[in-house]
């Protein structure tokens, strides 16, 4: 019977996993911007954020920033309207079939530049905060609803409702949908209202550039209604002042913070779209010449502007040359600021700067310049004309058949762009370098790794349940063994993918891995998986591999889904620019997080065993429930206090930071208590239903796990000790201070000390297996603090931003308190299980 319960549990898990695969949408989907032509466009080298990279990378980064995903899906608006109206699409709009388009990043990006008239009206600017979307659409809603109300065809009783809805700042999609379904309006008016309602639904997360640009938003103090971008710019100024000094300005509201993000997305799109010359985010596609011709061209431009006294009448290329030398002059001492041609030494320095450090020329500048002007600036005539012709060819092809450019047209552009780049710069990236990065983007190894680790984890859980069967030769047991072997293969696959990923990243960036938070997370996944695999091959106890794959899965999924972790390859602080120290100190330090992470996951597995184990006696439900009452009281009280600190109940004195922290701690304690009671009850239930076998002693079950935890902690302690010391040596080597009590190094030391406590306690025999398991989970808090907290809690504080912004501090606290509930629940049930029954 119990075996049946176990196997059915495994089946349920499998069923849940399978059902997670989304069903295919019924509508037809056209895939655009795919194929060899767009791959070729993606291979054009551009300079972006200080690094030369393929256009493919830029397109992916910018499209994800604007849309929230690398592939833009433009759904059929009629489908959403039909859903609101409760009819089907065909009935809503005649017999035109519903059609959606999926644009891959490069195609969408090219479209932004050459077909703004199309993209301006497509909803692809991510506005996922509903109140902001409502604020943006407020004026449109008001004018359209009032217009319908004013129509003579509108039935009298519905006019008042329409007018009240028009000015309702809390209008929801369901309110509008309920109205439209029960109304007797003509079909076109019902369609208009349903269309507006569809934009307020949870699923409709995007607005079009035009909708945003044409909207006005009322400022916080209701002084004025400003155009969206002006409002966001004002909010951004305020936010910068607040970030710089919280005492100098008011804390930005949630609406303002989200508005600033949306404005950034809109500005990114606007910088690329159309043929306006914009300063930010432009596509820098042609290297700047650094020869004598360019120097004399710059000197002439300086003479021209000095003669005229204004920039009027300068050619785009002249303007660009002046901007470049102006940027250079800002970096050098005043006495070195000489126009080219006056001083040989100054010219040499300027030439070196042009070659190594100047930005490339923007595409729009290049296209708007006359060929003669570009030739005067030092570009070879043939290449200039070929480039301009090839680009115009591409532009026309995209306009004529959007998303279906012919391969020859695209490859001509790629070739022309390379020929031009190689003609003026010796540092133009080779085809191999560009291809390496586009291949890395296409394979997306870090995006695939979670699938490998996830498969391994599921198979390991299955094999673990199958191994519970007593008979050696039973087919279930054999299936379990097969699943185990497959799981190990999947883990090796995950590790292989990550190794390929890291190899590519290192080759692309030129720096040893782990230079930012994102890389540290995926590195921990790799080390945890590899370390677990090594231990697994030695000990052959499924739990080790299970813990490793769980940590690796958690980390890779986090890296892929948390927007805070930026996968972009960025430039490095000067002091970090040392591969030896990056490769030793940082890797040792971050690898220790992986070892401790493995101990943490093993601890959680052991905790689950303790939670469901059979003790001397079975605690009564009433006993276990004792902690529920204080837990709920704390949770409610703390929650109300936190809400008050965000101004939910009015008075200004309730919004103080101190009140927030006190109540946040109370609420988190309440959460832990409540959850722990629930978990302890759950553990008791599982025990009563399936596992109550008196012969199975918990100590025997957990002892090997405790041993592995001890071992992994030892590995972690060794790594963190080495890492911290190497950090000191690096600091001493680069700025003459072995130890400066910097928060990051202090937390590394604290983590080391925190783990030394259970290790010493275990040595002295005070810490038994249970408390070692408990410590492995609890001590991980200090790793979280060293890894995440130093950047996102210290200095930032928990109260500065909302629940999921800045560093998602709120969400993180809730998750941590929730995870801590597990060992506490196990301790609670265990304590009661060993305590003599009071009754």
């Amino acid at each position, binding site marked *: 019977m119990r075996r049946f319960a176990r196997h059915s549990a495994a089946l349920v898990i499998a069923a849940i996993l399978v059902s997670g695969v989304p069903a295919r949408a019924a509508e037809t989907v056209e895939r655009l911007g795919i194929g060899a032509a767009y791959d070729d466009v993606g291979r054009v080298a551009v300079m972006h*954020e*200080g*690094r030369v990279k393929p256009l493919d990378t830029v397109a992916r980064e910018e499209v994800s920033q604007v849309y929230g995903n690398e592939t833009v899906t433009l759904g059929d608006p009629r489908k959403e309207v039909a859903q609101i109206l409760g009819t089907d699409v065909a009935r809503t709009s005649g017999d035109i079939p519903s059609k959606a388009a999926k644009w891959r990043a490069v195609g969408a990006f090219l479209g932004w530049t050459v077909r703004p008239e199309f993209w301006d009206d497509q909803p692809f600017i991510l506005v996922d905060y509903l109140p902001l979307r409502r604020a943006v659409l407020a004026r449109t809603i008001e004018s359209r609803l009032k217009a319908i109300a004013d129509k003579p065809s509108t039935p009298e009783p519905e006019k008042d409702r329409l007018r009240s809805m028009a000015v309702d700042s809390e209008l929801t999609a369901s309110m509008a949908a309920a109205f439209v379904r029960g109304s007797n309006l003509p079909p076109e008016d019902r369609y208009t209202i349903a269309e507006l309602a569809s934009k307020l639904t949870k699923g409709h997360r995007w607005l079009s550039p035009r909708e945003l640009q044409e909207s006005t938003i009322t400022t916080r103090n209701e002084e004025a209604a400003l155009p969206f971008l002006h409002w966001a710019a004002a909010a951004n100024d305020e936010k910068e002042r607040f970030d*710089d*000094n919280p*005492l100098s300005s008011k804390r930005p509201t949630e609406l303002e913070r989200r508005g600033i993000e949306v404005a950034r997305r809109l500005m990114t799109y606007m910088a690329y779209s159309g043929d306006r010359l914009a300063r930010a985010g432009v596509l*820098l596609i042609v290297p700047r010449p650094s020869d004598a011709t360019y120097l004399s061209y710059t000197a002439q431009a300086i003479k021209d502007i000095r003669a005229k006294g204004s920039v009027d009448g300068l050619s785009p290329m002249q303007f660009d040359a002046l901007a470049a030398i102006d*940027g250079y002059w800002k970096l050098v*001492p*005043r*006495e070195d600021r000489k126009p080219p041609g006056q001083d040989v030494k100054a010219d040499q320095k300027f030439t070196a700067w042009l070659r*190594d*450090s*100047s930005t*490339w020329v923007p595409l729009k500048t290049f296209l708007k310049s006359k060929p003669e002007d570009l030739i005067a600036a030092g570009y070879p005539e043939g290449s200039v004309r070929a480039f301009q012709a090839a680009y115009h060819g591409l532009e026309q092809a995209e306009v004529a058949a959007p998303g279906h450019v012919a391969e020859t047209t695209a490859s001509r552009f790629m070739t022309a762009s390379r020929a031009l780049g190689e003609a003026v710069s010796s540092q133009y990236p080779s085809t191999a370098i560009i291809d390496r990065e586009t291949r890395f983007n296409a394979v997306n190894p870090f995006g695939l790794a979670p699938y490998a680790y996830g498969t391994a984890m599921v198979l390991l859980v299955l094999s673990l349940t199958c191994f519970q069967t007593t008979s050696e030769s039973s087919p279930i047991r054999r299936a379990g063994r097969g699943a185990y072997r497959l799981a190990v293969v999947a883990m090796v696959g995950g590790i292989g993918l990550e190794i390929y990923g890291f190899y590519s990243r290192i080759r692309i960036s030129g720096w040893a891995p782990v230079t930012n938070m994102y890389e540290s997370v995926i590195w921990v996944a790799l080390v945890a998986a590899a370390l677990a695999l090594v231990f697994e091959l*030695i*000990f*052959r*106890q499924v739990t080790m591999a299970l813990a490793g794959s769980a940590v690796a899965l958690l980390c890779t999924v986090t890296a892929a889904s948390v927007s805070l972790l930026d996968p972009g390859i960025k*430039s490095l602080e*000067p*002091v970090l*620019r*040392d591969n030896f120290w990056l490769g030793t100190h940082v890797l040792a330090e971050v690898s220790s997080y992986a070892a401790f992470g493995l101990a943490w996951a093993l601890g959680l597995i052991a905790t689950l065993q303790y939670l469901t184990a059979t003790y001397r006696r079975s605690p009564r439900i009433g006993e276990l429930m004792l902690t529920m009452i204080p837990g709920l009281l704390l949770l409610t009280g703390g929650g109300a206090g936190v809400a008050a600190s965000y101004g939910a109940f009015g008075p200004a004195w309730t919004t103080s930071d101190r009140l927030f922290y006190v109540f946040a701690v109370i609420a988190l304690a309440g959460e832990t208590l409540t959850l722990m009671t629930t978990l302890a009850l759950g553990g008791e239930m599982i025990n009563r239903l399936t596992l109550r076998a008196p012969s199975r002693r918990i100590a025997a079950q957990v*002892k090997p796990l405790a*041993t*592995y935890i001890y*071992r992994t902690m*030892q*590995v972690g*302690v*060794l790594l963190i*000790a080495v890492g911290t*010391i190497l950090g000191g*040596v690096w600091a*001493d080597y*680069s*700025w*003459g201070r*072995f*130890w400066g*009590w910097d*928060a990051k190094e*202090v*937390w590394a*030391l*604290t983590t080391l*000390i*925190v783990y*030394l*406590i259970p290790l*010493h*306690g275990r*040595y*002295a025999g*005070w810490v038994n297996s249970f408390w070692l398991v408990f410590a492995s989970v609890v001590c991980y808090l*200090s790793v979280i603090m060293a890894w995440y907290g*130093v950047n996102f809690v210290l*200095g930032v*504080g928990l109260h500065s931003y909302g629940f999921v912004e800045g560093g998602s501090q709120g969400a993180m606290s809730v998750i941590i308190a929730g995870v801590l509930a597990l060992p506490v629940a196990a301790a609670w049930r265990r304590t009661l299980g060993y305590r003599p029954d009071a009754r």
Partner: protein
Amino acid sequence: MRGVDGTCRFLASLKLAVLSLGALAGTLAYATFFETWYSTAAVNEYIYRGPYFAVLLALLGTNIFCAALIRYPWKLRQTGFVITHAGLLIVLAGSFYSVRTSDEGQVGMREGDVRNELVRVDHPVIRIWQMDPHTQQYTREFELPFLPGSFSWGPGHPRHAGLVGWLVSRLPFGGNRSPDVPGETLTRSGEPFRVVAKEYLTASAPAREHVGEADGMPMARSFVPIELPPGKMDQGIAACRLEMTVGDETKEIWLRRSATLERPRPEVVSFRDSDYALAFDADRKRLGFDLELDDFEVGFEPGTQQPTRFESQVRLTDLAAGIRDEPHTIRMNHPLDHNGYSFYQIGYQSDIDPHTERPTGRFLSVFRVAKNPGRPIIYAGCLLVVLGTFVQFTVRAGVFTNRGKNR
């Protein structure tokens, strides 16, 4: 005798080890938060360099020492344990030695400048020059050490005595809030004047209203505090209000530190008998050799404000060692070592004219200069700690044996 034995056992016990490790971890965690609430200078003054922390480290050191000693004669399996704990003791001893012997400061140079002194920025001094009444030349120089701490103090805000005093002052009704503070006398007896610091601001801004003096002397400058965000309290420009008495004449003067590493412009105070020039400066220590900056360059990622490198071309002249104009390049991660001092490129500052307080459009290349004779001891200790930990975990516990499997 039994008492001594008991004390030794306690000092060597694992109980004390766990207790002191726990206290250390707790203190460190609190310290990092303290830093974000106030400033790096504050956490250094109150915690890391405070007496409580020293006692804690001493306790830990004693514990490690006794724990290792009480197990003598050591067995072979204790090799790792002994090496690790000996290493820890050496690290602690090396750190203690370093604190006593090391020195650090900064040197800031424009291209073409020659420098032969380091600015010990953490050791502020009040510098006073007696002036000749006729020629206005400086005739005598006095250097008064002035350690004002990392919090502002003055009327209504008394100076706290360490962490405990500070914690007490945080309590409601705790601490002295009287408007009258005695101030800190900076001069010793035997000096021709008396200087008392009456007020200190960690971050100051010039006051809008300049108060003119009754006798028609030029208007004196004064400063008001500015409130900086939490954790950045030490990032302003400090100022202090001094009371100077010569004979029976007493005058008040505000002095402000320089925003760069250059010497601040002295303020002149006139007394009946002579004039004095005063400056709120840092201790400047002779290096014993000259360094000249030929060229300084900053590299940026193209089109961004993200610096990629700082590089200074310098020439070293040390006549005592027979070195003249020896060229060196100092850049990030590539220091210059000479005569026990190391020069590390840490960045650059915009040069500010001391008279107009505006940027001059030139850059100061900034080096941190440090001398740390304790370094080899600390390194040796660290090496032993790592080696010992490795031996302890592998040889005894056998991480890579199959004992787990056998179980």
